[in-house]
């Protein structure tokens, strides 16, 4: 039973207040994209056993979408942050590097 802190209303919300929204930071491919790009955008999700970035909505709360960095293997939460961004904040990535040396997710990794 997860607890995630909503960056908008500041509530440490338990899972039953939240709705999961899948992988974060997807790039939308619309008309003009090729089949592979579009297929990947719709169906190929990161599925790491470890550090993951995902979307949540504070559905039974302020209604806002936010992002969470979470370990899918231990359920440790490295942090949450607003959805209006295209990549994880640098400070958060550093915090993760401190706890999970050598982590990587998509193009992001300890080095970046």
């Amino acid at each position: 039973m997860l607890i995630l802190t909503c960056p908008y209303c500041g509530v440490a919300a338990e899972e039953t207040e939240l709705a999961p929204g899948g992988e974060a930071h997807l790039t939308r491919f619309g008309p003009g994209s090729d089949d592979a790009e579009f297929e990947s955008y719709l169906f190929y999700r990161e599925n790491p056993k470890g550090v993951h970035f995902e979307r949540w909505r504070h559905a039974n709360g302020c209604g806002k979408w936010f992002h969470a960095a979470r370990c899918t293997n231990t359920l440790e939460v490295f942090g949450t942050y607003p959805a209006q961004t295209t990549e994880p904040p640098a400070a958060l990535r550093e915090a993760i590097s401190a706890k999970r040396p050598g982590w990587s997710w998509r193009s992001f990794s300890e080095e970046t």
Partner: protein
Amino acid sequence: MKNHYSAFAVAREALRNHTGWQRAWRRAQPKARYDVIIVGAGGHGLATAYYLGKRFGITNVAVLEKGWLGGGNTGRNTTIIRSNYLQDPSAAIYEKSRSLYETLSQDLNYNVMFSPRGVMMLAQTEHEVRGYQRTAHANALQGVKTEFISPRQVKELCPIIRLDGPRYPVLGALWQERGGTARHDAVAWGYARACSDMGMDIIQQCEVTGVRSEGGRVVGVDTTKGAIGCDKLGIVVAGHSGVMAEKAGFRLPIESVALQALVSEPIKPVMDVVVMANTVHGYMSQSDKGEMVIGGGADGYNNYTQRGSFHHVEETVRALIETFPMLSRLKMLRWWGGIVDMTGDRSPILSKTPLEGCFINCGWGTGGFKAIPGSGWGMAELIAKGHSPLTDAFSLDRFREGRFIDESVAAGVAH
């Protein structure tokens, strides 16, 4: 030569204090190479190996298991067997599977306790009624024997059901008389014993750490017990398919989530059918031990812990109490979680992969146990011949073409 199992054999052994029973499967060490390596000694992996030998005479096969055989979802599910699916490709593979279950105990000389006690899916809204009538029509043309039955018939088949629930009265049900359950561990053990008897090596405590390829073609695997060569590789590792695929150098359109199940304390027989109530997201059967076996919901987020969130259990239990009031005074004995692979259309993937000679079987989501024999039957053909009518529609490229196999259209969940 292994023991032949029979009442006579048991009696004979009883008279000599059971000293004559041999190992159900040989203890094996990896050879340098095999014609086919199957990664994952769960039901699907073992069944694939079994039919490779049985149907195509390919017995130079190793089944590699990181833990203990049958220790994944095969041993964690609620053992429901049915084939009343809507879409043709699903109905085909699940019905093949169901029909193989009918004679599996005899084929394997191992009692898997297939119990065709009947499966009913309750229709509790007008929309569900229409959905199941559609399924019944489809099944009739697919050669799957189902019928849409009345509330009265529902009550006759399952006296503990409450028909006139205040929220969702039972308006009828989709009934498959030859659906049922089987003993999950026995399915894995029976296949393992038969594979071992054909000379195949089942190697437990052997984790695959890498996949070897040359010129885009698979040539072997690295394992915790050393490198092993092979011509063909079958990856059948529900819950960890993504992780294995990565080792093989390709990606899969799946996500891994936790699915929960629970059992009550055992009581004397009260329910001789399997009941699924999709409107309220609950399904239940009674095991031979007398436990009420209950399927819960899946989490909506990626998770490898084999621990689900409690609120799914809560939702399932309250729904079932509404349909089966007597449950309220039963006690829950144990609940647990398993990791399942979810695909974009919630249907499985049985397919070639970008790596030549490497085949994948995954994405069964919440419904894999019932498919074990059929999946093995089709997967073996796919590996041996390059394609199979049972698996063709479940190929990876369907996501690119938009050729989905969506079972949710008729009714909710796909357990």
